């Protein structure tokens, strides 16, 4: 995989980890028309994002095309320490998928 799609800020404090993440993705809704051809642009969006910490799922989101372009999500979970790694797996509705790692600060 080439460029990283996810921007992640994870911070551990007081036994909890707060995660803010943003995916760089167009989230094409399937409602827009191509101005030149008048044809509908097919939907292209991230439909699932799963975040794991220490091989355990701590957050999972099923998304629809009603989520804004460059989707932003924030959540927090118990545990996690500075320097630990989070593993994030995204799946596009096209079937494309990828896994990225991010360290907790």
């Amino acid at each position, binding site marked *: 995989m080439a460029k990283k799609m996810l921007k992640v800020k994870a911070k551990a404090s007081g036994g*909890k980890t707060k995660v803010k993440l943003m995916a760089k993705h167009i989230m094409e*809704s*399937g*409602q*827009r*028309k191509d101005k030149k051809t*008048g044809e*509908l642009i*097919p*939907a292209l969006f991230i*439909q*699932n994002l799963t975040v794991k910490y220490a091989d*355990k*799922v*701590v*957050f*999972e*989101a*099923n*998304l*629809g*095309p*009603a*989520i*804004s*372009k460059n*989707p*932003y*999500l*924030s*959540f*927090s*979970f*118990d*545990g996690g320490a500075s320097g630990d790694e989070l593993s994030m797996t995204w*799946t596009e*509705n096209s*079937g494309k998928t990828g896994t990225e790692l991010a360290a907790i600060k």
Partner: protein
Amino acid sequence: MSIDRRTVVKAIAMGGALMGASVLMPRIALAAWSKEAFEAKEQTAAMKALFGSDGLEESAEVNLKAPDIAENGAVVPVTVTSSMSGVESMSIFIEGNPSPLAAEFMIPVGTKADVSTRVRMGKTTKVTAVVKANGKLYSAAKEVKVTIGGCGG
């Protein structure tokens, strides 16, 4: 050939199974991602597909934070929190959108029932947060005014 965007939005909202049907049909749906729920055109149908029921109970323990007026419907910040214990999932429904179900968040044990995201809204409508806790459905709703829609283009 000039079709203005309102007409387009309306046409899709009313008649067309255009979008999802053609694009997603050939693909195998992921087990977790409920295709039926995400493509449902009616909010009650989407809820039934996702939860197997649309029997919601309004609860003060579900907190939906969204602006009163969204200037730009393409980016509406929404936060759902709940003080309940045993929360399994939290979902966001936008009644007036072509497909009302916007997102479903799974909350495993140890994760706080507090999630923020940003959604698109086609027009002024009711946003409903549904929290599934201990097998029951609880909700909170809020009307959000949209001055510029975010669905057409």
